[in-house]
């Protein structure tokens, strides 16, 4: 019974978190590609580019997690 409860709770959380993520996945991907392309074409010194690329990756992760 305890196992069943934990499993059903876990599946509920998974479904709830996955639903909006699936909807946003295309947007997240498109925005991530645009962000990277924008940064790569800034033609700024490479340290600044590295930091901004990291920013794109962080934003992508947050978008996928729906945060």
């Amino acid at each position, binding site marked *: 019974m305890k196992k069943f409860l934990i499993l059903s709770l876990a599946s509920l959380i998974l479904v709830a978190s996955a639903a909006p993520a699936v909807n946003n996945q295309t947007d997240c991907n498109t925005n*991530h590609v645009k962000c*990277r*392309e924008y940064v790569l*074409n800034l033609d700024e010194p*490479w340290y600044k580019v*590295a930091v901004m690329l*990291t920013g794109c*990756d962080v934003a992508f992760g947050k978008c996928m997690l729906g945060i």
Partner: protein
Amino acid sequence: MRWRRKRRSGSWIAALFLFFLVTVPGWELFLRPSALAAQPLPHWNARETAVPPSPSDDAVLGRPLALALDGERLYIADALDCAVKVFSTEGRFLRSIGRKGQGPGELSFPSGVCVSGGLIAVADKLNFRVQLFDREGKAAGGFKLPFAPDRILALNGRRFLVTSNPTAKRAGEKLLHIYDREGGIIWEGLEPRTSLDPVKDAFRNMILVCAGSEGDLYVIFRSGERTVRRYSSAGNLVEAIDVDPAYAFRNVETPDAGHGRLKLAGFCWAADFDAGFFYLSPPEVLDGKDLGPGRTICVVDPRGILRSVVGLPCAVHRFLVAGDRIFAIDDEGSLRIFEVDR
């Protein structure tokens, strides 16, 4: 007696060899390809030609990303203004082609431009397509792409080379793509370098492309590799040219950017190919910890030997060489024109 004769003929051969070595020009280079590099390199100066001022706001470049020359017209892809700005070779502003949007004749972040058979082809990055314009600036078709195009080059036989930055979101991504004018894919190649660090990969996969004189193309990695790869217009790798060690890497270790310390062996910031020579601009080390655009352009021959260095009065982000003239984009995003005193 027989031994003596043998020795005499041997010394004759050695003397003949030495004679050729000293007298025949080019022998020294044949034996020691970097011999030229050991000698002091000729240093060419670049004299600036004043760009005439224009009353039009359109003449101001927002974010110029690519240059193309067609006879007396210079085309500059301006990503910020979503247009291609047309200048004369004296730097006089002539017109602007395209405007922001997604429809025919509209552009979103144009990052590359080239001219082929009277048509201006634009890498319309954020619309994921190549747009064609006639010389008057009217839309003349184009084709969709499954990726965001980066640079575009005109090749032989009404073909275009389109480059892309890898996204790690599609399987089997390639960096180079050759299309015909109708958008039919002819060839794709050059696999991106991949690892677990997407930032490191972004730098390792930054490439520069130059059109050769015979419809072929050259690919140069901006960091980590000192070779110039030559591809035919059909996409076959013809040769890999090792660049003279006298053209040094610019090594920096950028501070922690969330992925540990990133070691970069900067090779080339911008490049062009003209009249049989490569023009490579090495990046400049800034404050000992970063790499930015440089103030010199190295002239490298087709064998990879460094022939001379052109000194510029300012750092240049992009440039195009046409004979003794260099069209360049400076730190402010302005067009600068230089005459080279060889």
